């Protein structure tokens, strides 16, 4: 187990190095010029050159890369935003709890809905409940979360002069007020993410329910509730957990739009604004941090398999 973890951590290093090079190169290969962008085409040539020098963009690309990555490795310094002139880590650290909370609530909503409907659908296969559940899953898969979010915000405002958007309050400041604000985006996002979970849950559970040890449990006269929840569900959850792990980048990526629509001061919005402004250091550093988080999370998910199925061994 220890060796497995060390090996996975070792493998993460080249992965993150590759991510850092890729994102650094992609930002510079993007069409356009950040300096021109900063002055929206209104500056005169001497201003552009001076700004380029001021930002250090007049130096060779490899020097810029080494300075950026060197700052992270030696001083934990992720650099400063070209636009806000603020240290990137400070802003990321201030915003990350918002995105994390949204992601966790979204996962909670999607798991509760997806797993529940998936179980009912599998246990009552080909019944009316199954058909309803499958239709709902297809619907959840088909409706884009950003479209649903706009509808939830705009339609009540037109019809009832009410909108579920409030001013963000931190959880530490007022948990009740915070949850009131976070629940609507989490519900919207979570409902649309519940579709794939429901489908995977259903098929995985159907698969497990056909296993011999389940048949044995039936033969022994165990109650259905105990068979499904105690014996079948745990094994059927492994692909669901994998799916949640695979969807993690989506939760972060989706937060860009959800945070913009619901006025949440999270990392997604910070990243999106940096991307549209070609704020190289922010995009590079946030990408690297998020990549590290995804790598770490996937490792945690891989390790959780042993808890769900003790037969799994790590080598």
């Amino acid at each position, binding site marked *: 187990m220890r060796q497995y973890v060390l090996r996975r951590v070792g493998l993460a290093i080249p992965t993150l190095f590759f991510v850092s090079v890729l994102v650094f190169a992609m930002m510079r290969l993007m069409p356009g010029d950040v300096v021109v962008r900063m002055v929206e085409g209104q500056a005169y040539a001497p201003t552009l050159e001076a700004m380029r020098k001021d930002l250090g963009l007049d130096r060779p690309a490899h020097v810029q890369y080494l300075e950026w990555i060197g700052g992270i490795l030696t001083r934990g310094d992720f650099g400063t935003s070209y636009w806000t002139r603020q240290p990137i880590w400070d802003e990321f650290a201030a915003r990350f709890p918002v995105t994390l909370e949204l992601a966790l609530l979204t996962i909670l909503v999607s798991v509760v809905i997806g797993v529940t409907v998936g179980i009912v659908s599998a246990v009552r296969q080909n019944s009316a409940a199954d058909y309803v559940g499958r239709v709902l899953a297809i619907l959840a898969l088909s409706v884009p979360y950003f479209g649903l979010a706009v509808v939830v915000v705009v339609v009540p405002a037109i019809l009832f002069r009410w909108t579920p958007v409030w001013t963000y309050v931190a959880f530490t400041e007022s948990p009740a007020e915070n949850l009131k604000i976070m629940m609507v985006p989490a519900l919207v996002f979570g409902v649309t993410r519940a579709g794939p979970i429901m489908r995977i849950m259903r098929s995985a559970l159907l698969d497990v329910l056909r296993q011999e040890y389940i048949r044995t449990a039936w033969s022994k006269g165990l109650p259905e509730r105990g068979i499904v929840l105690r014996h079948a569900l745990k094994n059927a959850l492994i692909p669901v957990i994998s799916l949640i792990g695979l969807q993690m980048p989506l939760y972060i990526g989706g937060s860009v739009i959800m945070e913009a629509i619901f006025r949440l001061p999270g990392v997604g*919005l910070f990243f999106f604004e940096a991307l549209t402004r070609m704020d190289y250091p922010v995009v590079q550093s946030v990408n690297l941090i998020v990549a590290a988080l995804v790598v770490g999370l996937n490792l945690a998910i891989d390790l959780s398999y042993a808890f769900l199925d003790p037969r799994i061994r790590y080598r």
Partner: protein
Amino acid sequence: MIRRFVLAATVALLALTLPAPTEAQQPRRGGVLRIADREAPNLDPHLSISFLTHSWASMAYGQLVRFPHGPEQRHTADFSILPDVAEKWEYTNPTTIVFTLRKGVRFHNKPPVNGREVTSADVKYSLERFMAKSGFKSRLDQVQAIETPDKQTVRITLKEPFAPFLNHLASPAFTAILAREAEEKFGNFNHPDAVIGTGPFVLKSYQKGVRVVWERNPDYHVKGLPYLDGVELEITPDSNTRLSLFRAGKVDLGHMWGYASVEEGKSLQKSNPEVVVTPTVTMGQGLIYMRTDQPPFNDVRVRQAVSLAIDRKAWSDGLYYGEACIDSGPVPCAMKEWKLDAAKLEPAKAKVLVGYDPAEAKKLLAAAGHPNGFATPAFHWPGYAPPWRSVYELAADSLGQIGIQVELKPEEYGKYISTTYLGKFEKMAIGPITPFTEIDDWLYGTHVPEQPNNRSHVADAELNKLLVAQRRELDPKKRKEIVDDIQRYLADKAYYVYFPTGPQYISHQKHVKGFKHHDGYGLGHRLMFTWLDK
């Protein structure tokens, strides 16, 4: 007797049914105005060129001079110059302006400045910092020296006579007066505690990504102003959410300037008939720009054909419910004081500028050696707000009617803004232009070689003489005459082809009073005169 009674009864009835004579409402002190808008990328007015930064800065900072707002302004593009921190100014010769500072103007009462009086040294420090650090520093390229003979006097010497200079000083985008102590303590003016100016509002708190709160400056140098106790700006990046907050009455303004598109405005009038919606032709211009230094657009007949192919009246009807301004260039519709209406031009020239005659356009193309037309790309950024996508398609369709096959070439914003927007494109491009506050930018900036906004690559020696002359002429009347000559000269050159300018629907809640649109980038001064009737 009966007749007298009937008469008396009629008079009494009329008195009851007719509305009481309206009294001009007196502005009322108090209340907090709520706005939903985007977040400024930076609080330091010299380290950002974003109009959001400069709008926020205008709340807290003062300048030497400013534009008129509220009851002071004659119209939305009134860019006459009023005193602000400077009480008066005088040209001692065509290149030297002496400003006398108003006595008793104090910075906000926040440490480390603690409400001390503004001196000429602050002005010199601020202007020199702008010239050293701002992305707009070239705006003050003409400045040769800034001297401070005494605490109340600032003498600015220019390299040559430069008429736009006062306008640049009045723009909140350029010359906020800052306190040196704040920079010494905080490193720059990006820290919320470093935002210490002489403006009408004091920055009270700033929660990044959430909300910014200003409160009334009790020591503001204009007595009795501002009327509001404070302003809260709810940071709302998404336009749909902003409009929803406005519809739901959670904010008084769904945009800091009250902007709503024509479609949004019409929809608001239906869903929220109680809100105040005022269609206003704001500063702006949409145009076709062409490589006039290369074939086929180096032939004036081809450019004239392009202009004559645009049915501006039909565009206005189709895109803007007939509410657009058709005579939109080269001086934009909103800039009334500088505008020479097409009706005052020679009819043949006016026709090229604003007319529609596809048959004539085809003849001009044939005369220029293109009887069967030609093909051209049209570079553009598709992300501009509606109805821009329709504009691109209409332009392609209109030019197609006379035989010019337009291939629309959408570009990613980063590429567009750093190439096409700066004139680096082949043949043709379509898009809007930055709304400037100074006539020099609309004319000199777009027609003189090497200027970044000369996207059509105009190089016209005769025109250049006029363009240089207007910026060196300090007498407004004489300058206007030159600007009129420039408009007469440009009318049939078709260096740019101008589209109708649609209105913005300036919208606010009914209880918001005194909020007048102004085409400058200031927010503080327009809110200085705003008050709440509730």
